[in-house]
């Protein structure tokens, strides 16, 4: 059995995290969560009423064994993100926050300047901060110092289904990071999720590819299996891809002379 994932002291049975936007019905979303085996699902603060304890969106997402990871989607500044985290903490009773600050409403690309400020402040307030970021290895180190509990670099523009177009940067991040690395955004097919886990990513977060599939429940299962396969492959140590042919007369055979 593959090793469990631990983030901020909490152990996860699954390395697949799920986003809950874009589903055609809350029932389908609930069924897809169940099929995915995920025990961490994100929930946009803007989609539910934090003052309404019986909000339907929250009810549908809350399943036994599933932890909620509220996100700050919609905020444009660190100040708004901190407020969003506090509202989420109040209504969902969790210190966990997926920090996403994207002032640009089209590509939803993260603003690193604001993200760093918010991470520092939220970490001081005792939040478990998982920031959504560009695949920038140096910035990941800054977030480590700022008190993040994991980093969530994007594989490709969100919703693009382009897969791991930032692979070369992700490799550096994974190699150098002291924090768990969750590849977020851009993963469009189970094979791409498997690839991220094979590379050594600790987990992936998937939304569009599952929510928008013709059969979201079956797609959730496909991702579950792909993530398991990718992780098992990683732990079993993949054979190295040889960059050059192995010479039939070894270059160092003169040492035997």
């Amino acid at each position: 059995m593959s090793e469990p994932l631990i983030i901020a002291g909490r152990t996860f049975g699954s390395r697949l995290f799920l986003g809950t936007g874009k589903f055609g019905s809350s029932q389908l979303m609930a069924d897809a969560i169940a099929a995915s085996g995920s025990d961490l699902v994100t929930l946009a603060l803007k989609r539910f009423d934090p003052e309404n304890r019986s909000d339907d969106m929250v009810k549908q997402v809350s399943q036994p064994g599933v932890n909620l990871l509220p996100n700050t989607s919609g905020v444009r500044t660190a100040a708004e993100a901190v407020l969003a985290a506090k509202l989420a903490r109040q209504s969902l009773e969790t210190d966990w926050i997926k920090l996403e600050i994207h002032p640009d409403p089209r590509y939803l690309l993260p603003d690193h300047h604001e993200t760093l400020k918010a991470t520092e402040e939220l970490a001081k307030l005792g939040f478990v901060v998982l920031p959504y970021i560009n695949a920038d290895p140096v910035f990941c180190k800054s977030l480590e110092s700022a008190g993040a509990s994991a980093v969530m670099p994007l594989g490709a523009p969100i919703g693009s289904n382009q897969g791991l177009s930032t692979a070369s940067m992700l490799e550096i991040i994974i190699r150098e990071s002291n924090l768990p690395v969750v590849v977020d955004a851009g993963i469009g097919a189970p094979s791409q999720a498997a690839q991220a886990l094979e590379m050594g990513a600790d987990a992936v977060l998937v939304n569009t590819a599952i929510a928008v599939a013709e059969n979201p429940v079956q797609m959730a299962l496909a991702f579950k299996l792909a993530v398991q396969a990718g992780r098992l492959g990683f732990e079993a140590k993949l054979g190295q891809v040889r960059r050059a042919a192995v010479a039939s007369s070894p270059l160092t055979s003169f040492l035997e002379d």
Partner: protein
Amino acid sequence: MNQKQSLTSFADTYDQHPWDDTAALLASITKADVQQALSHPGVGTPKDFLALISPAAAPFLEEMAAISQSLTRKRFGKTVQLYAPLYLSNECINSCSYCGFSKEIPLPRTRLNQAQVEAEIAVLKAMGVEHVLVVTGDFSEKQARDYLTEAISWIRPHFAQVSMEVQPLPEEDYHFLSQQGLHGVMCYQETYGPRYPEFHKKGKKRDFRWRLETPDRLGRAGVHKMGLGVLLGLDDWRLDSFYVALHASYLQKKYWKTRLSISFPRLRPAKIGFSPDQPVTDRELVQLILAYRIFNENFELALSTRESPHFRNHMIPLGVTSISAGSKTEPGGYANPKAALEQFEINDERSPKEMDQVLRSAGLELVTRDWEPHFGLSSLP
């Protein structure tokens, strides 16, 4: 952005695209231009858009529908947002020849007071509405500032998202209102063509440039969303819509934090007896909506209750991302239907609950809440 750049406006771009040149460009569009536009869906140029709304694209309608639908699902998922208009006043200082609120129409006018607005809010809340669009006729500038500031303060605390479709305002008013929690502003140019003065003979609305530069003022004021559109049927809908695309292209590069919403209100015969010169057919309106989506995968595309249930049922799944339902277009109409003059006749009377069922059977979810009302406020609690 340096100071010089920040003071330029869309008017400069507009002046570089004379109406007659655009007409000539439209006449030159070929099948090859359409195929070129279809080859990079979601990220087109204004010229691509013109190709997609041209007569040459008519044979591609089915292909356009498939592309638009799949782009929309990818970008917005299987969701459609709900809003409802909240008409506060049918007073108006203008005489627009096509509008039910024209001051030339000798009918009593009303402006809702706080108690009346609260009665409207109660009905909307009971309908499950969380996003509202505040609508009024045009006031004098001072009255607009005073009344809208008050009205937004009455409405703001009750909804997740409050936007407005009112007269163009100065930048400082937009700035102030958005700090009070106003989310977005819709301001349609009506027509970008040379016949604008003919339709707007009196009142402040005669000032074409003031209106044309409204989105620039909105962008500088930092509103979250702005809405563009033309009144389809006033002039050549293809030429007019090209300028909407040109305007949108300009705005999204300059005010990159602001979301763009496009509407396509189609003129229908009003009580005042205005008949559009160049009515837009159902087939043409479908082509237009699909073209907007294929031109830009990020647009919010809004379809109101001006359109029929049949049209809406079939069109929504193909690219629309925002709909109204249960709308009343007369001030006070939610609490007291038909008591006051309405702006236009509703064509689809179905409630949000009924629309929810319709969408559900199409595999789509009607989203009522997609905003946290504290985002964007000047002082955070």
